[in-house]
């Protein structure tokens, strides 16, 4: 595995996250994505119709992905670029390292890219003696901290301003010690100062892509800092790393998807920069790279196309699901233990690393449905988490006590007469024990409940028994 995987110990991660006072402080003060999104949507009456349209565009694309991929490759080639197909992370890394080797590259600047996280590009570059520099401010911060992103659009959402100041003072030793780093602006300008020198000396620039347009062969990135533009324009070689479901048929389609993307993500009508790049610099262009490559990653996605998880391939990575998720908001993104956190991560992670390692995530959901209600692509996230639970159940992967308890419960629940008798006796007994205070501070087999809250006691006797006694009726 290219990225340190701790998903199988999700519960331990949760415990640590809940007891990490610094993290909890950061999560409680982090952003206000929820009200911003709500306000942006309030301003756009046709937002619901746009969601339908966005979903339809992606569904159509996925149904004809083979054709659009071919068309896209043709256009990229016509524009003077080259498309490389990578079946998995290892192939993607190898292709990239070959490109580096052929150009003798020593320094690579990077725009924000979740696919580069998925394939573990930074570690591979480091191992090959190549310096990788994250140029998105959030990514730059977590790179200094030797961490992965904890959110797909706000990678450093788990750190506080004080943490960043400390990280900068530790890393930027050549700067005066008495400089003022108390404001977001001073932190930003310090990072900008440092990164500017790196942009100018990089051999290769890497970006991800929000969309790849089949009609024109362009890759599209949306950013707020402009670092992506400098990454892809200044070095001699621009490499785009993207997964294959980023293909979108036309520029018009992209324009529609953009209308739901930023609003869902940050509550902006548009991100500050929307940048299209098509092939290398042409004769007469004032700037641009000499070479343009696209590494298209599959990594299991093509096998999702035909199955019950295909809806997940509509995801445009806005992050709205995690911004609205009670679980994500309680523990942050690192607890999820791999690259993709939140509800989208809970569905995607088992697809990419297997349900055996990733199965905790789709289980750790209350099915509150808030993620689906805000997803701009109308992805039925809870339904797909339930599908993962079905896969686990079929393969007997859930813990034995859970399966045993469920089986015992189902035995009674499918035998109404026995159920009515047993429950009436049991609730009467429980009411006798706990009825005085009306609650239990501890109950057998319910430690997961009573360690954290009281268990209200039953009133005693079931409704069905009382109803029959009262009405004397059998209906």
């Amino acid at each position, binding site marked *: 595995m290219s990225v340190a995987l701790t998903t199988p110990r999700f519960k331990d991660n*949760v415990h640590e996250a*809940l007891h990490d006072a610094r993290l909890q402080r950061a999560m409680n003060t982090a952003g206000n994505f929820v009200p911003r999104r709500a306000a942006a949507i309030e301003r756009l009456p046709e937002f619901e119709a746009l969601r339908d349209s966005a979903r339809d565009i992606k569904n159509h694309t996925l149904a004809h992905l083979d054709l659009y991929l071919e068309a896209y490759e043709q256009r990229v080639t016509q524009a003077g670029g080259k498309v490389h197909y990578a079946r998995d992370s290892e192939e993607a890394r190898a292709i990239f390292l070959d490109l580096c080797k052929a150009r003798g590259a020593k320094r690579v600047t990077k725009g924000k890219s979740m696919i580069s996280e998925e394939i573990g590009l930074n570690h591979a570059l480091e191992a090959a003696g190549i310096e990788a520099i994250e140029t998105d401010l959030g990514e730059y911060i977590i790179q200094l901290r030797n961490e992965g992103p904890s959110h797909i659009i706000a990678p450093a959402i788990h750190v506080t301003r004080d943490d960043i100041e400390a990280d900068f003072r530790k890393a930027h030793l050549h700067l005066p010690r008495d400089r003022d780093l108390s404001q977001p602006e001073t932190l930003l300008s310090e990072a900008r100062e440092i990164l500017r020198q790196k942009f100018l000396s990089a051999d290769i620039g890497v970006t991800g892509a929000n969309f790849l347009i089949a009609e024109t062969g362009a890759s599209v990135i949306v950013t707020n800092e402009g670092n992506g533009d400098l990454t892809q324009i200044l070095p001699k070689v621009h490499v785009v790393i993207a997964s294959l479901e980023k293909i979108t048929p036309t520029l018009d389609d992209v324009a529609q998807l953009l209308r739901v993307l930023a609003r869902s993500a940050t509550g902006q009508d548009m991100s500050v920069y929307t940048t299209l790049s098509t092939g290398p610099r042409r004769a007469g262009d004032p700037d641009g790279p000499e070479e343009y490559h696209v590494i298209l990653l599959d990594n299991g996605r093509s096998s999702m196309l035909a199955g019950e998880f295909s809806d997940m391939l509509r995801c445009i990575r806005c992050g709205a699901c995690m911004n609205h998720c*009670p*679980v994500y908001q*309680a*523990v942050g993104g690192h607890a999820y233990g791999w690259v993709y956190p939140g509800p989208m991560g809970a569905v995607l992670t088992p697809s990419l690393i297997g349900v055996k390692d990733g199965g905790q995530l789709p*289980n*750790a*959901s*209350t*099915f*509150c*449905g*808030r993620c*689906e209600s805000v997803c701009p692509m109308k992805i039925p996230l809870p*339904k797909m988490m*339930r599908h*993962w*639970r*079905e896969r*686990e*159940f*079929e393969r007997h992967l*859930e813990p034995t006590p*859970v399966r045993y308890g*469920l089986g015992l*419960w*189902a035995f*009674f*629940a*499918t035998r*109404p007469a026995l159920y*009515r008798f047993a*429950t009436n006796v*049991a*609730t009467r007994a429980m009411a006798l024990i706990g*009825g*005085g*205070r*009306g*609650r239990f*501070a501890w109950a057998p087999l319910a430690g*997961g*409940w009573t*360690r*954290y*809250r*009281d*268990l*209200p*006691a*039953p*009133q005693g*006797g*079931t*409704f*069905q028994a*009382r*109803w029959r006694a009262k009405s004397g009726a059998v*209906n």
Partner: protein
Amino acid sequence: MSQGSPPGAGLRVGLFVTCLVDLMRPSVGFAAVKLLEDAGCKVVVPAQTCCGQPAYNSGDRADAKAIARQTMRAFAGCDYIVAPSGSCGGMLAKHYPELFADEPDASREAVAFAAKCREIVSFLTDTLGVERVKARYEGVATYHDSCSGLRELGIRAQPRKLLESVDGLRLVELEDSDVCCGFGGTFAVKYGELSGAIVAKKTDRIAATGADTLLAGDLGCLMNMAGKLSREGRQIRVRHVIEVLAGMTDDPPIGEGAAK
């Protein structure tokens, strides 16, 4: 609404009481019966166990289907099936058709059954057109929107509207009332610590309203919030919304004993 004849007159309504109300808090079932009968409905209570949600959400489709079939059989002959829960109501009305999507015959049956299923407050207001109740409750109440009722069945304005007609009750809004309380059925036990952290945020919000009463439409969520409030030593009465709407608040609140 025609004069004299109540809106539910002539309707045979099956009460799907839900396993939690059946086992933990029968008084909610009787409140449901009162509200339905006040609206003129003929209430029947066929022998029943559970809607099957625990199996369905644990990935056990076979048992979920067996329980669903049993439930559909038990309630055959009812004009409507009404549950005092958005979660179980959502299971009957939204998930039964999904559960049988791969079996054409059963699927038709599930779709027809689902079309008759309602959550009780939504049934009274949206289906029967009830606009007010005759009840009295002294207190300042706040209302939590349980997730399934809110997002699967569109229940938000309806309980607030009926609560407005309760004499003596003042309703104050709960910040983030649409955010999950952390119950999630078996989630609350399987991921107890996480569930406990989520409900702690909820009880902070509840306390911040200054209300003396917390109401909601799902007993699972109510038990979760009541259990956290009492563990934190907060003096807030917790009740199912229909206990208040039916004017049946003689039983102690959730998590409080008769001795208190």
